[in-house]
């Protein structure tokens, strides 16, 4: 598949599982998006484990201006306070609209599991057609343990009551995917 086909497929499949997919140009867009979404949802905090120092500083400035707080790692003391988790993804799988996150970091796991909204960015070049394409990378990771690898497809969901689909059980209630398309 060509890259633009992969992007389209990723958008379509992620959309089918109620992920909110948008295209962004650069990191600044990503940070801005996280702040905007948090504000619209009435959230107060953003946890962004794994964000580099420069971006983290930008995010903190943006948050400060809007009265939001960036939760600094370790996140252990903030388990019940995380509104938005902002993380990168290592890969995306177009076939199923899935994000792949190396979740070895406990802070990253906490943020992506206990937040209300998870926002993840992914460079368009990191979208692959299917899981099998990632086999070598995954096996490599598994061979250098310990490791906690996550495939994330849409928001947390259940159909346990009368088979009615309900979104947001124990994990994030919303998943936003920001595809960074190189221009």
């Amino acid at each position: 598949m060509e890259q633009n086909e992969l992007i389209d497929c990723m958008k379509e499949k992620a959309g089918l599982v109620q992920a909110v997919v948008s295209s962004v140009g650069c990191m600044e867009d990503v940070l801005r998006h996280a702040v905007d979404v948090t504000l619209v949802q009435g959230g107060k905090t953003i946890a962004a484990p794994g964000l580099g120092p420069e971006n983290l500083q930008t995010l903190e400035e943006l948050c400060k201006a809007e009265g939001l707080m960036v939760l600094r790692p370790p996140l252990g003391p903030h388990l019940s306070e995380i509104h938005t988790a902002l993380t990168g993804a290592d890969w995306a799988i177009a076939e199923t609209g899935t994000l792949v996150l190396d979740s070895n970091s406990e802070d990253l796991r906490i943020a992506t599991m206990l937040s209300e909204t998870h926002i993840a960015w992914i460079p368009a070049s990191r979208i692959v057609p299917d899981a099998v394409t990632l086999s070598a990378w995954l096996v490599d990771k598994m061979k250098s343990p310990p490791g906690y690898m996550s495939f994330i497809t849409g928001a947390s969901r259940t159909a346990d009551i009368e088979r009615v689909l309900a979104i947001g059980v124990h994990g994030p209630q919303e998943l936003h995917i920001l595809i960074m398309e190189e221009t």
Partner: protein
Amino acid sequence: MTQTAQDMKTYKSQVKAALGNRFLRKALDNFASAYKASRAKAFEGIDLDALKGQIAEGKDQALTQLERLFLEFKAGAEAASAIVHLAATAREANEIIAKIGRDNGVKTIVKSKSMTAEETHLNDHLEEAGFKVTETDLGEWIIQLRHEGPSHMVMPAIHLSRQQVGTLFSDVTKTPVDLEDIDRMVKVARKELRPAFLSADMGISGANMAIAETGTLGIISNEGNARLTTTLPRVHVALVGLEKLVPDLSAALRIIKVLPKNATGQALTSYVTWITGAVECAASPTGKKILHIVFLDNGRLELAQDPVFSEALRCIRCGACSNVCPVYGKVGGHTLGHVYIGAIGLILTYFYHGKDNARAIVRNCLNCQACKSVCPVNIDLPFLIKKVYGNILKDEGTKPAKNAVLSAVMKNRKLFHTMLRMASVLQKPLVKKDAGVLRHLPFLFGKAHDFRTLPALAEKPFRDLWLKIRPQIQNPRYRVALFGGCVVDFVSPEQALSLARLLVGHKVQMEYPLGQSCCGLPAMMMAEEQTAAEVAVQNLEALEPWSYDYILVLCASCGSHMKEGYSRLLAGKPEQAEKLRMFYKKLTDFSSFMVNVLKVNPKDFIRNRTKVAYHSPCHLCRGLNVTQEPRELLKTAGLNYAPCKDEDVCCGFGGSYSLEFPEISSEILRQKLDYVEATGADVLVTDCPGCVLQLRGGMNKRSSRIQVRHIAEIVADNLKNP
């Protein structure tokens, strides 16, 4: 909690109670319909048969080397600071886990969904040992609060209505809950369970796959509770059945490709988690997760060596065999399983939970093959169910009297046929003149059997009629032998007469070899394999496959049993192999012969456009894999085919099943007939005399104007210049 019935009397009363639950039936029925559509969509563009074959083959290979895979897994996981255990029994697994709890000063435990933990009754054990255990999967939490077991392997609380759940939640939270608002109920669970996650000392999960190469656990989940369970508490225990071992990631990815799609029609679950070793964990004194992986044997290693039953260990717990089971759809999982549910449950119960729990439920199988065809790892579920039934009869040493009678009679064709002729005479006082049905049921049948009229035995069996009418064709295109089967021969000879007319019209010489007997399927259904094998040999001898171009069957059940059952039954008789090979080459169902061999032409038929609905017999569409030909034949024969909902769902006959479980049979039939009536058809056509018997009996009973006919009859009626 429903206790699994250990005798038929108790079981039948449970069945009756389950049939009285209208919500359950409606919920399961809606699910069955929705499931089929979403599953088909999820597999679009995927070569499912190839994928199934690959997974089954991979599983079979893994099963021959479970011990090696276990050691490989253990080495990998322990190198990554996990501690790996092997528990010989359920009790041992529970004790190991309780000890891990005690050794680590654990008080509270959160659990994500695990059928293996249900198998060992882990919660009961841990609670008795003083731990507080909270199930965190929504469905599992609901049934835990209700002190019930799951009624489905993937959707444990599918038997409950939103009102029941809402009432439960308002009791638990002491706050009113809107009884219609499912979204709100889900949020109640989110809120109530969050503190349990945050404060738990230990998390217990299952695993869907254990990758030997790297010592990695693969866990799928939708709600996100498995991730929290394996992340927040300082101790993580995974309880894993040994059969979950796969050699490598590729094998695991293949399973993931199929499992969610086949389970619920979902492309992929929200989360797939791969855990290799002890990851960082601030709550642990060492800063590293305390990770224990407990593999459960509980009979699996022995089962893996079993030449027949080992394939049951291929199961990946998708639950699809329940989704498509017509019996499950009527009685639900608490009545069709012990811990494991549905077709695979009827089998595994015997091995994991003993014959007492399997004794009654194992008999509740129609042999409709729906489970077998949906199984993603090609387990021959109906066959194994009968095998388990046979084992239980053997274990108990006392067979039902009817087994002994059936075997004695069936092995001796002349005796069998003499008895049928005598019955035909004796039934006379009961027969309703000109209707060909019994006026009332013989006294030994109870009221439950009164959901259909029963046909009378024919005054003269086909074999007697045949001797008088046998047509002689000059220069025939083909020479074919008909295998009639008991119902055609002794109850519905008109179906064979119709065939004879059609064949004359198409210049085919037909023969009816008189040494043929019952196909043997009824013996198989009663787990009388020895008898079935003897009858198979008699039939092969009688049918002289070398003498004919084709051997035709009008009965899909006979055909399907002969095609699949004979090679199994005669596997130990190499002297039959050549005959069998020839027989298979020539065995053909009626519609396939008409369409593919005779290539019948619309101009040979009157075009009267009678509106017909079609019932696709289980043993034709799944047993013999024939789906297009009958529908095509109806159109060719000038009929107006009106598609009907669930054409390929069983009519509820199942031979002796309908006598054993008349209430379920009747309920399945009722739904079938409702769907047929909704088409507005004038005639219901099918191609199995057993189905005709059931469907016609049901239509008669409801005084419907819809006629029920074998496809050979209606096609013959439309033949020009007969």
